């Protein structure tokens, strides 16, 4: 019992963190251990190279975009709080928690999960997914499996289906609308260990 308590006490503002993200103490401790394991040089924060060292992430077609999501523009370091807050996006939605009318939106709400995914597409952060950005993602995900023409036609078709105001780009609202029927909670949640 002593070891779990002492770890929690070492983390500053851990109560606030738990409240904001909804993680339990056990989760926080596990994430802290993982954070320390990734921070090989023991600096107390992570840099993009630390993420890059994760083999499976390096092999992921959109690995660098995911890493980019952790670092806000201009920052080259991620502290533990930011690490946990970003990961909180992937917490499964609490179905049993009653909806309080005036409470701030949870990090792992459907809308915030969608926003997270949107920013993976929208790299220049102008609030729209342009045809170019879509092509880049498609190229990253499909690589050499399809020809350039096929990629272009997929991109055209996707924009055609989703773009409602005909500005040749997909805004966040259009993105959200096109994914109305998708079970975001299932696809954008990972099982954090109890």
């Amino acid at each position: 019992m002593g070891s779990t308590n002492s770890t929690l006490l070492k983390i500053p503002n851990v109560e606030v963190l738990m409240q904001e993200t909804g993680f339990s103490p056990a989760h926080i401790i596990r994430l802290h251990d993982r954070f320390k394991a990734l921070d090989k040089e023991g600096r107390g924060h992570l840099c993009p190279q630390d993420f890059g060292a994760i083999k499976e992430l390096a092999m992921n077609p959109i690995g660098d975009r995911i890493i980019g999501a952790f670092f806000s523009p201009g920052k080259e370091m991620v502290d533990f709080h930011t690490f946990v807050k970003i990961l909180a996006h992937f917490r499964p939605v609490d179905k049993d928690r009653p909806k309080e009318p005036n409470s701030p939106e949870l990090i792992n709400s459907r809308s915030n999960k969608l926003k997270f995914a949107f920013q993976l597409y929208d790299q220049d952060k102008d609030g729209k997914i342009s045809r170019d950005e879509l092509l880049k993602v498609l190229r990253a995900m499909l690589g050499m499996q399809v020809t350039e023409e096929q990629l272009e036609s997929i991109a055209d078709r996707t924009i055609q289906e989703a773009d409602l105001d005909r500005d040749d780009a997909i805004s966040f609202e259009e993105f959200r609308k096109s994914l109305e029927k998708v079970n975001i909670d299932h696809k954008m949640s990972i099982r954090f260990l109890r």
Partner: protein
Amino acid sequence: MESYLFPFDSLICMLLGISFTVWFTLLLVFIIVPAIFGVSFGIRRLYMKSLIKLFEVSELMLKMHPVSLEQEIHEMRRGGAEPEFDMSDIFYFCRRGVESIVDDEVTKRFTAEELESWNLLTRSNYNFHHISTRLTALWGVGVLIRYGFLLPLRVTLAFTGVGLLVVLTSVVGLFPNGRMKNYLSDKVHLMCYRICVRSLTAIITYHDSENKPKNGGICVANHTSPIDVIILASDGCYAMVGQVHGGLMGVIQRAMVKACPHIWFERSEVKDRHLVAKRLSDHVADTSKLPILIFPEGTCINNTSVMMFKKGSFEIGSTVYPVAIKYDPRFGEAFWNSSKFGMVNYLLHMMSSWAIVCSVWYLPPMSRMEGEDAVQFANRVKAAIARKGGLADLLWDGGLKRGKVKEVFKEEQQKLYSKVLVGMCCLFFFFCIHFFFLN
């Protein structure tokens, strides 16, 4: 009209009568009699082997069809067809990426528990959507067999087992205390637990039975589900420890305690650690009484790890007999998430799975060594159990699953302060009395 139905009426009665008799005879021969004598026909092992073959078939079927997006993409390359893209496809890669960020040694073990093949139970169907009609048909047949045939059979057996337990232990309770009563009580308990084991179609392999717990000792085991008790108690006789319940459980508890001494605590007594410890020590001091069965984790863990053992049971100072229980997840998920499912729901889940296959290892007895405190002893036992059962030895407190972190430091301060307060109160009282009587 009525005369038309009459011959059918008697025909139906006859058929019902015959089927009941056949059913009862089969029940008696194949289940109750072997349970009394502790032998087995080996039917369950045969069943288990055929289930394994079935799962291999389903695995082959799965391999033929792409399951994940990556596999779909690979298929497209061969087919030359234009892949169907959806904006949500990025989620798959995103999820995988974040999983690898969060992933660590322990999480890997848990995600590895996610079955590579599908055991045809919907509840373990995390990733697999409709794959092929053949597999779905197989699943449908499985549902029919499990719910239509196995479930009623098992429920009947369960009722028989529990009913017999209550009735027979009450009968044995009428005997005068002595060797005869102990002998009968042992036999009755064993028989009823064996029937319950068969009612769950539990296929248990016991290892190292020479280390089975003896009188005057404490048996500790890791805890996954309430049926751990039934699994252990069908192979040996134990004194159970627990809280007094109302309802059916209460009836069972009261009946059991008539036949041999179990330790049931009232709700109020549970909070008093000293009372609990005293009762347990008194029980182990009496070598004519059965070994106590305790689950020190205090809560159900999902059977891939052994969480922190509460030190209470290790302070008593008698020999500890550790037991490791490991369930095979291929046949059914035995873990009980008590915050999600109630007891009845859980039992129904259990009874409608294919089977419960587990292994039990009896470890050699351990005692507290010189200079070792209860916590260190508890950790040593826990490590031994985790090693034997192939479970991850985690330094987690099982109570973290539900409640907030216990603030041990605060508690210590509170204790100190309250002691000071009590001390002062006593002094105050003393002075008052003194003052009162002297005047």
